[in-house]
């Protein structure tokens, strides 16, 4: 019973939290560029407006994929709040990521196609890293279940500092921030319009935005596991991590997928192995 209440709480609170984070993100980005910036509630206005627009669709599959993406993202957050199994959560969110790509591939628009291929490469890049992070959490705590991880008496950050940086890479890719924002970018007008989101419009774009908020909360929730022992620690860790993301987003330019694959896999894998060997020795 308690689990179900927690799940419902997660599903309701996560989009509100995600929207607020997105609003703060835009505000901070604007301040970094010495602009005033939109109000914090701006993402909610955007999504509400998108839901109020006329539905223009290409085919059935596009709509279906948008919905599956939303449901998978919401379900992964719900499972996270219900303190379920990390591996189960991982597979559920992977389904969402794949369905977004399928939605992009569902239309014949070249921008959408290119964006979907790039999104697929992004998924390919961050999924192994997330699995490695989960595996290392298992090696420390001896369990994939979140309730058992939360029972561990020491912050995971002490034992897995490098794995947290690896998770940071996954976060940057998942949030589609520079230098990894090549599947869908606000700033790539001439290059690929809006990438995988090109053919989604009106309410369906709103659904995808909503799912993106869920994903933001989801991956920040995984980050929170690294300092689960104190509430202050969690807030401090998440705030500094997200601020670092915004800073990186504003100082880096977009790179190619080849660079991303080479850089993230090599650095990510090396850091993972160093951390795991250190864990084994120490």
């Amino acid at each position, binding site marked *: 019973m308690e689990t179900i209440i927690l799940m419902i709480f997660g599903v309701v609170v996560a989009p509100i939290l995600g929207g607020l984070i997105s609003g703060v993100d*835009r505000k901070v980005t*604007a301040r970094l*560029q*010495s*602009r*005033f*910036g*939109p*109000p914090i509630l*701006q993402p*909610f*206005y*955007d999504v*509400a*407006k998108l*839901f*109020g*627009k*006329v*539905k*223009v669709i290409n085919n059935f599959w596009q709509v279906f994929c948008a919905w599956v993406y939303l449901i998978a993202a919401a379900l992964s957050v719900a499972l996270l709040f219900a303190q379920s199994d990390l591996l189960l959560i991982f597979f559920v969110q992977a389904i969402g990521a794949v369905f977004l790509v399928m939605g992009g591939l569902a239309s014949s628009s070249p921008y959408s196609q290119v964006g979907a291929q790039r999104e697929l490469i992004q998924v390919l890049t961050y999924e192994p890293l997330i699995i490695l992070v989960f595996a290392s959490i298992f090696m420390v705590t001896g369990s994939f279940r979140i309730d058992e991880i939360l029972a561990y008496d020491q912050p995971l950050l002490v034992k897995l500092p490098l794995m947290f940086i690896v998770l940071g890479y996954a976060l940057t890719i998942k949030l589609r921030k520079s230098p990894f924002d090549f599947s869908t970018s*606000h700033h*790539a*007008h*001439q290059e690929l*319009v*809006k990438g995988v*989101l*090109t*053919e*989604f*419009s*009106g309410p369906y*774009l709103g659904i995808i935005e909503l799912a993106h908020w869920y994903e933001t909360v989801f991956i920040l929730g995984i980050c929170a596991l690294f300092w689960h022992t104190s509430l202050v620690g969690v807030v401090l860790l998440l705030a500094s991590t997200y601020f670092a993301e915004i800073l990186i987003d504003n100082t880096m330019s977009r790179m190619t997928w080849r660079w991303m694959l080479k850089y993230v896999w090599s650095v990510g894998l090396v850091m993972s192995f160093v951390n795991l060997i250190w864990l084994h020795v120490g």
Partner: protein
Amino acid sequence: MFKKFIDKSRAKSPWIMHFDCGSCNGCDIEVLACLTPMYDVERFGVVNVGNPKHADVLLVTGTVNPRNAKVLRNIYDQMPDPKGVIAIGACGLSGGIFRECYNVLGGIDKVIPVDVYVPGCPAKPEAIIDGVVTALAKFEGLRG
């Protein structure tokens, strides 16, 4: 309640798309100047999108001729309702000094319905922002 919030949001989040029907670039530079930190229209929720399917307001500059009229019409048709169109600059309004040219059709409104006319050669950024705000009144008019 949701309907009210959506109506309010329409006025708070106009995503603009900018189309240049072959202007001298003067008006285009002024449109882009609105997005710079100097004028910063993003504080009103304006985002410059490159995709007509995401846009709410279409900003058109330059003279329409038979060739780009098709493109303009196509872009306009791809934008989901409710949408607004703003014609910017003397050329966009009437053809300007090119009005009598053999290949110029005249104003933007010969091809697509225009909601707001922003005069000037080039139009000032302040006038363009004012035009966008005036176009939002059309969205608010949808309320009733």
